């Protein structure tokens, strides 16, 4: 593949993400997402289309070609890895983590990204207690600049400093009134078919409306209607919390 400038890479990525969200992508979507002028978008799309990475004809929709999709996925994956690393491991807040990931993704080498990805993956294979401990130690270290012995030799399973913990979001973890966008449904779960046909598709916004008096199931609002499901089912749905 030919060399792409960072801004072209950003365009590709934006098209991919927009198509994840279940939308048809138009020039104005990109204008909105990247906060640039329509004329620059059109220029960029022309270049991308000359490189055979996008199709841009019917009804003004923009679509990635197979080649374009591969290129975009590559950048997007880098972005995801970097974001996870910044946010989950380093504990940088979501906005800043996204911003930095957007910058670094264009310059970082594949080998480095791979190692970072493996590190993130490694922390996820640790037992939950171990991981909690590790993270809270790390965040204490950042706060105090040192780590006293007591904290290191603490018994496992002890909960502390929950606030600084990065959260892995599944739908069951959300609180009443929180809004989120669906990222994916666990493809192996038996409820996937049913949820999909009821409109629970990636990119859709949902809101947690209520919890049954006995604590389970929960009720979410999606596409303007109310859907109730048990927490154990909600745990199969990965979401990204919106503010």
């Amino acid at each position, binding site marked *: 593949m030919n060399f792409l400038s960072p801004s072209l890479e950003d365009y590709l990525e934006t098209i991919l993400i927009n198509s994840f969200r279940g939308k048809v992508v138009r020039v104005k979507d990109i204008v909105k997402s990247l906060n640039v002028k329509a004329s620059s978008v059109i220029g960029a799309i022309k270049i991308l289309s000359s490189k055979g990475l996008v199709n841009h004809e019917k009804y003004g929709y923009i*679509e*990635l070609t*197979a080649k374009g999709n591969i290129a975009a996925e590559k950048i997007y994956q880098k972005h995801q890895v970097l974001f996870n690393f910044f946010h989950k491991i380093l504990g940088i807040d979501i906005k800043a983590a996204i911003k930095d990931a957007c910058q670094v993704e264009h310059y970082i080498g594949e080998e480095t990204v791979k190692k970072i990805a493996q590190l993130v993956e490694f922390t996820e294979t640790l037992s939950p207690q171990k991981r909690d401990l590790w993270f809270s130690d790390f965040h204490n270290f950042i706060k105090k600049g040192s780590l006293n012995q007591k904290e290191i030799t603490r018994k496992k399973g002890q909960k502390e400093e929950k606030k600084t913990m990065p959260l892995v979001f599944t739908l069951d973890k959300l609180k009443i009134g929180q809004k989120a966008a669906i990222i994916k449904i666990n*493809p192996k779960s038996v409820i996937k078919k049913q949820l999909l046909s009821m*409109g629970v598709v990636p990119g859709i916004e949902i809101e947690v409306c209520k919890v*049954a008096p*006995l604590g389970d199931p929960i009720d979410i609002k999606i596409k*303007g209607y*109310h859907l*109730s499901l048990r927490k154990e089912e909600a745990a199969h749905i990965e979401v990204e919390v919106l503010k």
Partner: protein
Amino acid sequence: MKKKIKIALAGNPNSGKTTVFNNLTGARQHVGNWPGVTVEKKEGSFFYEGREFDIIDLPGIYSLTSHSLDEKVARDFLLEEKPDVVVVIIDASNLERNLYLAVQLLELEVNLVLSLNMIDLVKKKGMKIDMEELSRVMNIPVIETIANKGKGMDELKAAIKSSCNQEKAVTFKIDYNNDIEKEVEKLSQVLKEKKILENYSRRWLVLKLLEQDENILEKVKKLEDKDEVTNKITETITKLEKHFGYDLETAIVQRRYAFLRGLVKECCTHVVGIKERKEITDKIDQIVTNKFLGIPIFLGLMWASFQLVFTLGSPLADLIDAFFGWVGEIISLGLTALSAPGWISSLLVDGIIGGVGSVLVFLPNILLLFLIISVLEGSGYMARAAFIMDRVMHAMGLHGKSFIPMMLGFGCNIPGIMAARTLESEKDRILTILVNPLMSCAARLPIYTLFAGVFFARHQGLVVFSLYFMGIVLAIVVARIFKSIFFKQEIAPLIMELPPYRLPQVKSVLIHMWEKGSLFLKKAGTIIFAGVIIIWVLASLPPGVEYAAKESLIGKLGSLIAPLFSLAGFGTWQAAVSLLFGIVAKEIVVGTLGTLYGVEGIGLKSVILQQFTPLSAYAFMAMSLIYVPCIAAIATIKKETNWKWTALAVGYSLILGWIVAVLIYQIGSLFI
């Protein structure tokens, strides 16, 4: 002679489909079952401009996959029966999700008419839908309807008529992205060459195969040279999934919804900016599903329902009772005047009028019960009840949706058992069916009303409520035990829409009431009638014996098993015999007692007062609640499961009933 036109009605649950159906057909409808399964099938017909239209109401579904029986039934009908026109009822206030079904139907290449129902609600919300644009993009007729006010029905009929004249109107196609389209094209070629399943729309077939629809895959696997095709499909799926980075089914559904989202955006405009206003449904839910109020309200509603059945139903029941007493007397007098033989008079008065009368007396109560159930369903509260109760149902190894079959079981176990079809998992379904007979059906009411009326007149409601409650508690215990014995694995998920609250339609409620009521009457007219005649015969043989005396066949049979029940305080042969015949149908327990004691109405009450004590009466009621489902229920269980489960249902209830009755009497005797 012009051919009848076949129409199918499809739509999401709660889209107002049944109301449209009732409006179109009026009284010209009947309820049956889909062949081979027990999903309810409603058929009806109407005339329009000189032609007759047969109309079939498909089960309410969200999509045309085959993950639930309802969807499979609907899909098989569309594929195999090929109706001339399919009318899709769309809840216009929830356009996007409702249109998903329509889009799938279009892909199936059926002749479609869209009915945008509840359009008034849309206008109330300050929205406007551009019908013409919608009709143009989807290339099908779109009609505005307000079914609960009967509006738009003529227009709908006209659209149906003109639509069935067209040969093949469907040119609709969703553009899944280029990569998917290319593969669809390739696979279509393969199917075409191999001449596989040619009676289906090829594009739809390919898409279903790519979505890994089990039903269609199975059909392909049955073919002779399937290997090339199945390999090709797996290959394509792997390739596309690798390309997308996530599973293909999600990708396909996502694109369908993406199309709809675009379409809805283009067709809908907010006329006035009253966005984000709290809707009435949300306001009601804030109270009804409230953390603290939810359960008290739920219990209160259930309690009120039963009070209503009694306070409103009993006076009417007394009237019917009086009527049958009067008819019996007239006939008896008339026959004596004609000097007919004694046994004819006995057969007519003791057997037929006595028995059937004792059943019909309780029709008011049963109609009221179904009135309440259909109001609960029609208003949208039933789903909230499942929402509130799921934690409990789940704890007893069932599903929030099991609550609905259980609730229906209070009316009659047969629809209750049939409603268990809404459960997707077979395990949940079987468990729900097995414990359903413990839900005290309306046919047990006659027994309770009689005994509670005689012995606990001042606390009638409370005593009857306690029996219903006992049934529920036993159901929990039994379900847990069976679950731990037979189904240790995980149970099915709860994914349920909470529909907006609506005022139940008087017409729909009445039709529902009539349907269920007449079902009960049919039962009363056939099985019970047969039962009563058998009793009369057994009570009259051997010839010459005094009617229903101890020396009659029935008396001997009763005397034989009576000692079993003396531990429970009702060891009389009459009680034993009445229970024996209660297996035929629980309604005839009272009828049998009447026949055996040779009295009815007030007379029966005074006989019972002598034969039972309050304690043994309570034990008897408990026994009638638990022991052996009636024949109709047994037949339904068999139809829904197999002989093994049916035998279990009969066996456990018999033993459990006896144990509970004995325990009540023995423990009670210690205190009284």
